């Protein structure tokens, strides 16, 4: 790890520890924004971490900056850090200024983006957009353009993910000034926008899995049955080892995707990550609940802040099956003798999918 990343990782972790308690995660799951957490995150500049240094970033490699999203996931993602980081990166790629505050991004369906006077007429819709109701800037991609829409430019209908996090529907039919619209950057085609979302969720899941493991290990050490901590029972130990296995695999897969993100194989990396981490999420969450017994099945206990997040996130931006199929198609472009060379020197997924 390089110095800048090390300092940022420590700072961000401490910040989340101090500011982002369960209250914050619970508020987010009611569709609210825990303002004080966001303010703290914004104050140290995390929303700009994926941007080039000259545009306000820290000068971090993208692979390193992406790892910050995992930290938020470990605290149940009480604020839209990943969404804002990636939206700002998309804006920067188009030469547009970053969002003042919170941003999110979405592919605009039925998109029409046409010149109108000295500005643009933009219309279209998007559904299930993360955190849209709290976003000052909504980065929309469609109709060959990228649009930095403002809250007042569109209609937001609240919706929610399986665990209650804000996932809103949007409709836009507005005339926007020229400086809110730019040609769509080549790097963020439709696949890449979905991939950005999948990457973000894979990283958050890897973080949440680490917390699920820690909570479960801790609980097993505290819960006494038959006169001793259940952690001393071999059946429990063997199950916790499986959680550690899955946690380790999820970390490796998410990091693989982060490392590949700024190169030719970005889509392939995301496919590996979303497929592998999503599978790990299901296995680990189920064991964590088993080990926690009835107390873990309550609203009051904090376990669900992470397990329900895992169950939601694994379905967002393409489930395991969706990404497995893309990976499978790509690998089978050269079945038999081509299989191993594909594994060791991955070709660009776009070509096969």
């Amino acid at each position, binding site marked *: 790890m390089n110095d800048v990343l090390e300092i940022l990782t420590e700072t961000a972790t401490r910040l989340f520890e101090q500011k982002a308690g369960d209250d914050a995660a619970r508020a987010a799951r009611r569709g609210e924004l825990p303002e004080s957490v966001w303010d703290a995150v914004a104050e140290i500049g995390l929303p700009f971490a994926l941007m080039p240094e000259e545009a306000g970033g820290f000068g971090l490699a993208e692979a390193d900056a992406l790892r910050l999203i995992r930290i938020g996931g470990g605290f149940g993602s009480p604020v839209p850090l990943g969404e804002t980081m990636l939206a700002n990166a998309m804006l920067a790629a188009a030469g547009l200024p970053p969002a003042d505050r919170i941003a999110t991004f979405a592919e605009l369906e039925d998109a029409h983006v046409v010149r109108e006077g000295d500005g643009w007429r933009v219309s279209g819709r998007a559904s299930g957009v993360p955190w849209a109701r709290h976003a000052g800037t909504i980065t929309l991609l469609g109709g060959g353009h990228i649009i930095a829409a403002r809250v007042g430019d569109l209609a937001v209908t609240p919706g929610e993910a399986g665990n209650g996090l804000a996932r809103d529907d949007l409709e836009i039919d507005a005339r926007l000034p020229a400086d809110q619209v730019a040609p769509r950057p080549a790097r963020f085609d439709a696949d890449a926008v979905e991939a950005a979302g999948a990457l973000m969720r894979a990283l958050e899941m890897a973080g949440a899995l680490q917390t699920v493991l820690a909570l479960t290990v801790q609980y097993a050490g505290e819960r006494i049955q038959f006169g001793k901590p259940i952690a001393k029972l071999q059946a429990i130990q*063997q199950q916790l080892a499986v959680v550690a296995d899955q*946690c380790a695999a999820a970390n490796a897969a998410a990091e693989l995707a982060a490392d590949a993100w700024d190169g030719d194989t970005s889509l392939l990396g995301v496919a590996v990550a979303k497929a592998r981490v999503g599978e790990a999420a299901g296995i680990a969450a189920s064991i964590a609940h088993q080990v926690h017994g009835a107390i873990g099945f309550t609203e009051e206990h904090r376990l669900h802040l992470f397990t329900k997040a895992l169950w939601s996130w694994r379905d967002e931006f393409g489930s395991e099956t969706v990404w*497995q*199929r893309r990976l*499978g198609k790509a*690998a089978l472009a050269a079945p038999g003798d081509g299989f191993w060379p594909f594994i060791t020197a991955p070709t660009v997924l776009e070509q096969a999918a």
Partner: protein
Amino acid sequence: MSADLSYPAAPFSEAAEQLRTEVRAFLAEELAGVPPLVRAKSWNGFDAAFSRKLGARGWIGMTWPTQYGGHARSNAERYVVVEETLASGAPVAAHWIADRQSGPLLLRYGTEAQKQRYLPGMAAGETYTCIGMSEPDVGSDLAAVRTRAEPVEGGFRINGTKLWTTNAHNAQFMLLFCRTSGTPADRHKGTSQILVDLSLPGIDIRPITDLAGERHFNEVVFDDAFVPADALIGAEGNGWEQVMSELAYERSGPERFLSSMALLVEMTRLLGTTPGDAAEAAVGRLVAHLMTLRRMSRGVAAMLENKQDAGLHATIVKDLGALFEQEIPDIARQLIAVAPNAPATREFGKLLAYTVASVPAFSLRGGTREILRGIIARGLGLR
């Protein structure tokens, strides 16, 4: 408690990738026409001529110092040779154990004379070793070892039985783990490692046929076999520590997830380019697992290169790797219908049957699944 479960990314090595091209070309020529059923044996496939060719190329003992016949190359380069030979199903059994663990063990604990005597032959693909740890009453509980090497005038006199010794019938030497003092009740204390010349009198090697019909492991009976004092590796009484030091090398290599590659490759060949959504997803899932495992395994190699403790990380690779290798035949039979002797799948059917009968060993050899998970639980602070 919160163990660090991250794996470093192995740095990209231009030299290693160049070597990959070279190794692939060599293997394509050497293995031309070798049927999948033979390739499936992979690291159980014994072929001394092949090992000598690999040795002549400088692809055994690659990381060892040149003065002992090694080639002073990086771990990354060795990793390429190992994974390429395994993925193509090359017969690597002859030199496998010497290259992976006996050589490194000698480098670490051997005397200068021992290094000079054994390492060059190992690196040349001519000197083969086997591992004598398990016994009839000693499986997972290795510290209960009973085979005794009694210190006598000029050396040791060995009595006892080793079991499941892979390649004892082909190897010239056994790395014997045994007791040199005390009793099994002393556990770790009083154990040692001895490099036994298997041609000595008093050693009887009896092959055992396995589930898949192969004869690769053996029962080895020692009846008053005498070995000279200079056969002792490392310090007398230090056997346990030495054996444990081999484990990170033994548990994280690509052999821990590539054992069913021949079947996986043939499965994709039969599926072709457009087998439909379900089959594509099933293949994609395996790809995601394989790429992740490979990243983890290469990460452990990088940790070892940096002299970091990789025990927990390696154990996790082996546990996950065995699950992956073991589910491949199950997935293959769901995707491809195989009727007995049906012409279209006759060869594939044999390969499938062979792999089905091979996979139970994958979560036994090198530490059982339960033992590995116990080690992981310890890493989590649970024991």
